[in-house]
Every structure is written in C-alpha cells, then in structure tokens.
C-alpha cells in the first residue's frame, strides 16, 4: 500500500499540469458554452419558446464571441503585450485568430437569422441547427488558432462532423440526405488524408507543433525530402477538400445544392474561411521556408480551381449549383493569394474571405427566400421577373452578384484587386492573368442571373397568372440581408477599414514553447 502511495506521490510531481490561459480562448468558450446552454435549456423547457428565440440566442452568443474577440484584439495588437501562445504552445493567439473568430461569429449570426424563418417554413423548428452551427463555428476557430497539426485536425473534425449533420437536416428532401452522405464519405476520406499527412510531417520533422516544425526545418537540412513532400501533399489534399479546391471539389455542387440553404450559406462562408485559416497557418507560417516545394502545387490547384469553377458555373440552371461553382472559383482566387506567400498575399486572402463571406451569405439568404417552401425553387426561371415582384430583394441580390463579379464600389472589386496585386507583387503574372480571365467568364454567370431578374417583362405576366407563391421577406432574413448589403457596399466604398484589419491579422509564428 505504502509503496503505491509513494509511486503516486512521485508521479504527482511528474504530472505536468498544463497552464490554461482562459482569457485566450474566450471566443471559443462563448460559442461552445452558448451551444451547450442552448441544447440544455431547450431540453429542460417543455413549452415551445416564442418564435425567433433560438435565433436571437445564437445571435447574442455570436455577439458575445465578437466582443470577447475585440478584447483579445486590443491585447494582441498592444506592442507591449503582443501575441502569445496558449495551452502549452498548442494555440496561437494573434490578430489572425481574432480575425477569423470575428469572421466566423459574424457568419454564424447572419446564417442563423436566415435559418430562423427557414426552419419554421420547412417545419424543422428546433434548437439543433443553431447548436450545431455554433459548435461547427467553434471548430473553425480552433482551426484558425491552431499551432499544432493535431489541433488543426481536431478543429477540422469538430467543424466537419457538425456540418455533415447539418447538411442532412432537411428531412423531407432526398437531396439533403444524399448530400449529407456524400459529404460524409468524401469528408471522411479527406480527414484520413490529413491525418496521413500529419503523420508524415511528424515523421520528417519529429514534431506536430508548428513552431517546432518551423524551427526544425530552419535548422536542419533533410537528407531526403520524400516524406516531407508527401506530407505536404497529403495535408494539401485534406485541406483542399474543405476549401473545395479542384480536383477535390466534387462534393461541393452536390452538397451545396442539397443542403438546406442557410446551411449552405454557413458552409460557403465560415467553413471555407476556417479551412483557409488552417491552410495559411500551416503553409504560410510553418512551412514558409519550404515554399519552393509547395507553391507549385498551390499554383496548379489555384489555376484548376479558378478555371473549373468559372467554366462549369456557366452552364448550370440551378442557382444554388451556380453559386456552388462560383464559390469554387472564389476559392481559387483565395488560393492565388496563398500562393503569393507574402504578407500582402495573406492580407489579401483575409480580405477576400471576409468580403466573400458577406456576399455569399447574402446570396444564399436570397436563395433561401426565393426557394420558398420545400427549398426547391432554385431554377434560374424562378428568378424571372423578381425585380418587379420584390424590387428590394432583387436589388440586394444584384449587389451580391455584382460584388462576386468584382464590380467596383462593391467589396468584391477590392478583394479581387488585392489578390491580383499580391500575385503581381510576387511576380506570378501568369496566375494574375488567368485569374482575371476566369473572372471574366464567371462575370457572365452573375450577369445572367441579374438579367433574368430584371429584364424579363414578357414572361413575367404568364408566371404571375399561374399563381406562383409570392416571395416573402421575414424579419430575421431581412436583417441578415440588410447587414450583408451594408457590409458589401461599405467594404466596397471604404475598403481601408477591412484592409487595415487584414494587414494586422497576418499570422505570426511564435517561437516554440519551452
């Protein structure tokens, strides 16, 4: 007995208790806590709450996360205190972390507002979607703050598993179920690739901690780079799935189309941004001195992604699919910024992701409304004459589409300009030109939708006669749309605000924890 006690006492000394800086992870805690609270409370109350309660709760949670992030921002931007690592070097708290916390929290809030009426309309009312969205967003934040490949993987899984369920949430749409299965199967593969990649990188460098990997790679020359290269490639495959880079994009159109529209909005904004956050953290921060190895792969991925996204979008008749392909094209643009591998490039990618989040959230909000009950009216023809029926809605959609096309005075213009500028600065002229060519191709697609909405006087009467359901704009979606339009135009007219934010949010790599 005594010997056991002695062993235990001895081991007590051996056990290193991790130092937890709770302040550092407040945005994360707020989201997770909010999600758990929401589930618990809704399980404990028997009465159905007033309409909009869940959405309101979600928005308030996100507001809390944003406030917590702002407090962190002040701390990390303060030169006296600066960035720091938390949880024994597993997390980095810097401007980058805060940037993505804000971006993801905003996306959740806007998507939740759209989901509010959607769920009621589709008879799916309940707290699950909101709770999952908050959890998934928390996973995204984990990915953004990860300073360790294993943490990246953890974040990715938290993000993805919630998304698989959310994609299949619409019980009466077969497409929704199908999309969830496809997403799950392909997503599981991508997770496996990512894990393989992590294992190989660990094998090559002896650590999964990004700081330590970077330190190792800067101090040692590898005898043979095969393992490391294979690790890079597998990591890129895993993350490429999540950002929907070609050729790992195949799930995107089916899943975007099948998933409930508010979930698609969340996927295209928050989930894509989180995947890019991880990509930037890992490749820009940790593998920067091996850039000549991975930049060519990113180059190919970027070109394929932009071209395939733009060309395939053009032939779609289903607006959700069109936006899915166009999201692939936008991912390609962000990859162009990643490829630059400069501070300006990263700032450009951040700017692009934030700007894109608003346009795509707004776009899918419109799609949600026009989809009407059943979430099925997504054909281009369903938008015919929308400008006459719902001028404000059509105008908002026009703003989002023009912004996606990169028309001046909208957020999309400066986003594209920032990225192209970064590519030109990094002397990737071919990439810059290809990017613009694909922008030209996809502009056609956006214009086609706009034209359908505005210039369709002839057939509009015929449709009205058949007694089509009128599109309603419920309050929550209205707020979400107004916010998205306001941000899209604000960033388009005064891009300096976001540009400064993005510039100060370039990730830093802190030296390895002792």
């Amino acid at each position, binding site marked *: 007995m005594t010997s056991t006690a002695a062993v235990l006492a001895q081991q007590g000394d051996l056990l290193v208790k991790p130092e937890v800086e709770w302040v550092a992870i407040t945005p994360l805690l707020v989201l997770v806590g909010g999600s758990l609270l929401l589930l618990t409370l809704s399980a404990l109350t028997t009465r159905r709450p007033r309409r909009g309660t869940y959405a309101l709760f979600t928005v308030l949670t996100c507001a809390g996360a944003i406030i917590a992030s702002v407090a962190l921002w002040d701390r990390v931007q303060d030169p006296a205190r600066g960035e720091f690592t938390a949880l024994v070097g597993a997390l980095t708290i810097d401007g980058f972390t805060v940037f993505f916390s804000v971006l993801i929290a905003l996306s959740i809030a806007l998507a939740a507002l759209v989901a509010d009426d959607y769920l009621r309309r589709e008879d799916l009312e309940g707290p699950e979607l909101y709770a999952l969205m908050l959890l998934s967003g928390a996973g995204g934040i984990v990915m953004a703050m990860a300073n360790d490949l294993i943490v990246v993987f953890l974040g990715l899984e938290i993000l993805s598993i919630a998304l698989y*369920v959310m994609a299949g949430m619409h019980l*009466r749409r077969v497409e929704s179920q199908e999309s969830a299965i496809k997403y799950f199967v392909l997503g599981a593969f991508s997770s496996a690739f990512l894990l393989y990649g992590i*294992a190989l990188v660990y094998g090559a460098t002896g650590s999964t901690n990004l700081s330590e990997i970077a330190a190792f790679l800067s101090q040692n020359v590898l005898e043979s780079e095969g*393992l490391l290269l*294979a690790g890079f490639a597998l990591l890129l495959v895993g993350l490429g799935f999540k950002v929907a880079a070609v050729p790992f994009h195949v799930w995107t159109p089916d899943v975007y189309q099948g998933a409930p529209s508010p979930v698609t909005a969340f996927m295209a904004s928050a989930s894509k941004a989180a995947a890019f956050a991880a990509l930037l953290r890992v490749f820009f921060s940790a593998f920067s001195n091996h850039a000549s190895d991975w930049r060519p792969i990113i180059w190919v991925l970027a070109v394929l992604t932009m071209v395939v996204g733009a060309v395939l979008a053009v032939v779609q008749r289903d607006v959700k699919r069109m936006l899915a392909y166009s999201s692939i094209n936008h991912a390609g643009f962000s990859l162009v910024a990643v490829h630059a591998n400069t501070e300006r490039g990263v700032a450009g990618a951040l700017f692009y992701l934030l700007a894109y989040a608003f346009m795509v959230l707004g776009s899918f909000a419109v799609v949600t409304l026009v989809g009407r009950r059943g979430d099925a009216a997504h054909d281009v023809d369903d938008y015919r004459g929308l400008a006459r029926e719902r001028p404000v809605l059509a105008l908002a959609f026009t703003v989002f589409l023009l912004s996606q096309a990169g028309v001046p005075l909208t957020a999309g213009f400066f986003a594209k300009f920032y990225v192209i500028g970064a590519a*030109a600065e990094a002397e990737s002229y071919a990439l810059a*030109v290809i990017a613009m060519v694909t*922008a030209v191709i996809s502009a056609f697609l956006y214009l086609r939708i706009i034209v359908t909405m505005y210039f369709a006087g002839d057939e509009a009467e015929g449709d009205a006669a058949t007694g089509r359901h009128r599109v309603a704009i419920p309050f929550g979606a209205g707020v979400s749309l107004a916010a998205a339009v306001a941000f899209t135009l604000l960033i388009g007219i005064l891009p300096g605000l976001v540009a400064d934010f993005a510039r100060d949010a370039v990730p830093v790599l802190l030296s390895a924890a002792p």
Partner: protein
Amino acid sequence: MPGRLVGDLVLTAPAPLRRSAALLALLGLHAVLAGAAPVLGRRLGPRVLLVCALAPAATVAWALARAGGVLDGRPVTEVRPWVGELGVELAFRLDGFSLLMVALVSGIGVPVFVYAWRYFAPRPDIGRFAGLLTAFAGAMLGVVLTDNLLVLYVCWELTSITSYLLIGFDDTKAPARAAALQALLITGAGGLAMLAGFVLLGQAAGTYTFSEILADPPTGTTVGIAAALVLAGAFTKSAQVPFHSWLPGAMAAPTPVSAYLHSATMVKAGVYLIARFAPALAPVVGWWRPVVVSVGVVTMLVGGLAALRQHDVKLLLAHGTVSQLGFLVALFGAGWEEATFAAAALLLAHGLFKATLFMTVGIVDHAAHTRDLRQLSGLHATLRPVAVVAVIATASMAGLPPFLGFVAKEAGLEALLHEGSSATLVLVGIVAGSALTVAYGARYVWGAFATKPGRAGAPMAATPVEPPGAAILAPAVVLTVATVLLGAVPALADPLVEGAATSLDPRVEGVHLALWHGITVALGLSVLAVTVGVALFVGRDRMARLQAALPRTSSGTEVYQATLTATLRLADRVTSVVQSGSLPRYLQVALVTLLVLPGTALLSGPGLPDDLAIAESPLQVVVAALVVGAALAAARSRRRFAAVLCLGGVGYGVAVLFVIQGAPDLALTQLLVETLAVVIFVLVLRHLPERFSETSRRLSRLSRAAVSAGVGTFVAAFALIAGAARQEPAVSGEHLARALPDGGGRNVVNVILVDFRGLDTMGEITVLAVAALGIASLVLSGRSERTAGLAAHDPDEPAPATEADGPVGAVSSAGGDRLG
C-alpha cells in the same frame, strides 16, 4: 503634390499646379442629380432632363473658366485619399487632353439632354432614364478626369453598367435586352482584362498614378502583357475588330442615348485610353504600333463596308461609328506626334457630327415612324431643316470642305505623308476607308431624305410625316453651327486641339490646323477618296451585288454568338464528365489525386527498406493468400451479404496474422471489432436490396479496378516506407522496459492502457459513457414520439419521414449515429 506632371512638360513649362475642389464637386453634382432624378421625374416629367442638364452645363462652365491656364500647360489637380493601403487615391487631373474630352462629354452632353427632353413623350420611368443618363455622363467624366488607374477602372465599369441599363432601357423588347447584355459582356470582359493590365502596370511602375506612369513608363515583358490587356479593354470599349459587334446592336437604345454613346462617351473611352498610352508605350512595346494601327485600319474598312449594306439608317450610322473609331484608333495608336494632333481634331469633329446625325435619325424616326431607307422618301421637302442639318453633318463626316471633318482629315493625311514610307500602307487603308465614308454618308442622306424611284419608274410617294417641333432640332442646329464655324475658322478650334495634343505628346507643339494647305498631296488624296466614294454610291446596286457575291465573312455578332455557344457547350460537356453526381466516381477522382500527388512525392522518398522479408513462416503465406482471396471475392461479389462476409473474412485473416506474429491480445481486439462490424452490417443489410445494382460498363469497372489496385499498392508502399523512415528509437522499447518495474504488470498493452496512458483511458471511457447515455435517452424519447407513426408501418420497413415524424426525434437520431 509637386512633380505630378507629364514628364516632358516639366521641362517645357515649369508651371505651378493648381488645385481645385470643384472637380470633385462637379462629379458629386452628377451623382446627386442622378440620385434625385427618379424622384424629380415623377413631378416634372421629361423636364427632369433639363434639370439634369445642369450637371454637364456646370462642368462646361467650369472647364471654360479653367481653360486658359490648362491650355498653357498648367493642369488642375485634386487628390483625396481613399484606400491608402492599396495605393488608391481619388486623384483627378485636368490637362489639355482631358479638357478636350470634357468639352466632348459635357459640351455634347448638354445638347443631348435638351434633345432627350423633347424626344420622350411623358412616361412614368422618365426619371429613371434621366438619372441613368446623368450617372453615365458623370462616370464618363470620371474616366477622362481621373489620374489614378484604379479610379479610372471604377469609372470605366460604371459607364459599362449604366450604358447597359440605358441600352436595355426598353426592357420589354427582347432585342434591346439581348443587345444590352452583349454590350455589357463584351465591354465588361474587356474591362476586367484591363484591370489585370492596370495591376501589372502599376506593380511594374510602383505607382497607380496615371501621369507618373506615362511620364516614366516601365519596361520589360510584364509591360508587354500589361499593354495587351489594357488594349483588350480599350478595343472592346471602342468597338474595334473583332469586338465591334456590340456597338451596332447598342443602337437598340433610345436615340438620345445612341447620340451620346456613339459620339462623345462610351466608345470614346477606349480611344481616350489608347491616346493616353500610345506616346508612352509605342516606343517601349515593340508590337504596339503595328498591332494598334492595323486593328484601327481594319476596323475602319470593316465598319465602312458593313454600313454600305444597311437598310436601317440608324444601323447604317452605327456601323459608320465603328468605322470612324477605327480611324481614330489608327491615328492615335501610332504615337506619331502629328497624327496625334490630327486625331485630337478628328475626335472633336466626330463628336460634333455624329451626335448631330443620330439626332436627325431620331427626328426622322419620330416623324415618319420608320427608319427603313426603302420606305423613306421625299423627306428632303417635308423635313427640310432636318435635311439641311443632316447634309452638313454628313459632309463633315465625309471630309468635305469647309467643315471641321475636312480640316481634321487633311491634318491626318498630312501627318501620315510626313511619316514617309513606314506609313504608306496605313495611308492606303485610310484613303480607302475615307472613300467608304463618303459612300455611306451619301447613302445615309439619300436613304433618309431623297425621293426614291418607285415601282414603275415614277417617284415613290413621299412618306407621310408628323412635323417635329423646333425645339427638338435646336440641339442639332447648335452642334452643326459649331461644325461649320470651327471648320471655316480652324483657328477657333486650334488652341483646344493643340493643347490637347501637346499634353499627350509635347513634341506636337507648333502644329496648327488649317482649312487650306494649298494644293498638296493630301488634298489630292482627299479628292481621290471623294471621287471613289461618290462612284461607290452611284454604283450602289452593282456594289450591293458584289458584296452579296463575295463569300460572307462572319459578322461580329456571329462570332460573339459562336463564342457564347461554344463556351456553353464546352462547359456542358465537361460537367457531364466530371460532375456526374456519382459518389464512386468522385472517390476515384480523389484517389487518383492521392496517387499522383503524394505518390510521386513518396517515390522520391527514402525507398523501400533493405531488410524486407516476404514472409517469416509458410503459415503467413497461406493466410495472406486467404486474405487476398477474400478481398477479391468481396470486390467481385454481386450479393451484398456475401460481400460483407468476405470482408469479414479479410478481417479474421488479419487477426490470424497477428496471432502468428505473437500478438494474441491484438488479434482478440481485431476479432471483436470484425465481429461487431459484421453484425452492424447485417443489421443494415436488412433494409437494402439483396444484390448490388449492376455496374454500368466494362470500362468503368476496369477503371475502378485500376484505381483500387493503385491505391492498394500506394498504401502498402506507404506503410513500408514510412516504417523504414524511422530514425529515432521506437518508444515501445521503453514501454517494455518500464512495464514491470513502473507499472507492475507483465502485459505491456494492459499497462499502457491502465497505467502509462491511464488518464487518456479514463477520458475515453467517460466520453463513451456520456455518449451511451445520450443515445439511450434519444432512443427512448424517439420511441415515445414515434409510436403513433410506427403503428401504421411494417416495423421491418424503414419508416419514411412523414409529417408525423417529429423533427426533434429524427434529427437527434441522426446525431446519435454520429456520436456512436
């Protein structure tokens, strides 16, 4: 901001810069009026156009006030910060050339607004029209005034969008919509290419300030690419071959828009850009001069020939615009100083006569309700004042003295003659183009106003007309007076044109316009052009037959349509191949990528370990063969149940391999997992068809087999190589050494689970317990809610999701599956 001047100007005129907030205020005025017009339109009706005319009028007044200083080489500038981070600032600059453009944009803008006021009958959306037209004028003003490439791009795109809305203003007419879309697609695409060009140029030069880049143009390959992209923007905007198709289509717009679009704005934006860049880039970029000049000349000829074929007089004029734009591009694009000077004069002349001509077409259309020259007859008598104005404008276009068009064209021919042999081919092309201009000019006057022969040789009856008011003709008369006055006394236009050309190219200084140069070669060429032109017109029937007999070259619109169709078809085909919606195919794509990317990386890796043994005992070979056999059987099986059993066989075989290797506990775990998996499979299989659906084709089966074999090989090689890559000693040695002394156990695995990693195990158990509790409660709650729904169904059938299925229960069960 000292030093912000066109480079050489600094040498010739070290003038102080003058700053003015009025520049921004004027653009603001356009914006405010554009925003207010829809509201005002409801109260004022068409008179709102007069209110909106205040914006261009104020611009003209301001420009006049500043003209003296600007023409002396002292530009007015204004810089406000916008996006410092990206080097974008609201920089504006009024130099000589901008002044000329302002004179066109706003100076012709005022008459166009007045014309539009009389042109439109009261209609509810007149306010929207006025707003769009004002916004369009403001955007165009921004293009010619800004000194920042990105602001220029912003304004450029704004002109594209506003013109799109103006062309498609009658949005119930399908042709108008199609024309508007075509215009927007072509100019928008060109604009985006131009943006890429601007970025490349800006990065190469280190600044986005237009005047600084022109003063000190960067060199290198990048600049060549940038120049090509910028030209793509300029050519699309200025309707140069092969992008010219949208401009004739754009005449679907209401006539005031056409008058504005074809004369002073939109199409002149591209010319403006070429004019600005040519002196700087022509010497730096080798191919610039031949390409730009030949595109211009070809456009001039193509447009002229097309104009001769038209029966719609408005369409005729639209093709004429294409031709004239080609002329302008050829002159400006060369970057020769005298040609630049002549082009500046032609720019002014073209603005004046083309606006007038479109106005007369609009009046004819309104009065006679047709624009078909086969139906119009005798209008020279019934619409005499209109006919007079049209004849003068046409004469100026055809280059007849004593009008401004003649003065400008003479200057152009002179300039080309002075360039000597290098310009001979250009000269021939331009004389031919001028002859065509004479011919289609005559065709227009004859077509719109002449009395034509009828069926039986007797003259055709005069087309009935409603007499137009004097007010609608007034703007055209004003512009015609300018054409006559500036042509007869070129000294009036000289300072403006010279100032404009000098600001583009300082070498211009000292060149002057003149009506009469004496008997020169240029005059001879003019006479030749007119003679041939008249001959072409007189022999128009023969000409028409000749054109009909020639093999038809595809028109621009057909090229546009074909491009569009081809893009769609390509995308369609690609989609059907890569996006079939089939999960197996998606997986194949992902797996092939896996083979290609990390697979190649792995090949360059450390290679297979040297001490590789095929087998350590014969038993292993036997079991391995069984495993392989079971795997193949699973893949080939047609029945789901058999496949699952074969899969189980693979698992059990691996367990046996573990036993042979001396790891009975591992084997036990494997057995348990396999058994559980088979049981779960069987439970699920109850709900699935007995057989797999037949795989479609042999080819797809083969490709699947190939991919599977490849991935299998990859994974096996991967495992071997990764295992061989170990450099540090394995941690297992220490586990073995410390298991007994530290953990007090002989079974290392157990010690690891409960001792070395005891905390992990506890955590896992906790998670499992919580998950189990959660699943149990969900199953229970789901059952109570479902009892009603299930009573109606066979319990073996999967319950279809009906309205009765509470969303909470069903969704939670999905979540529960994941947790498990």
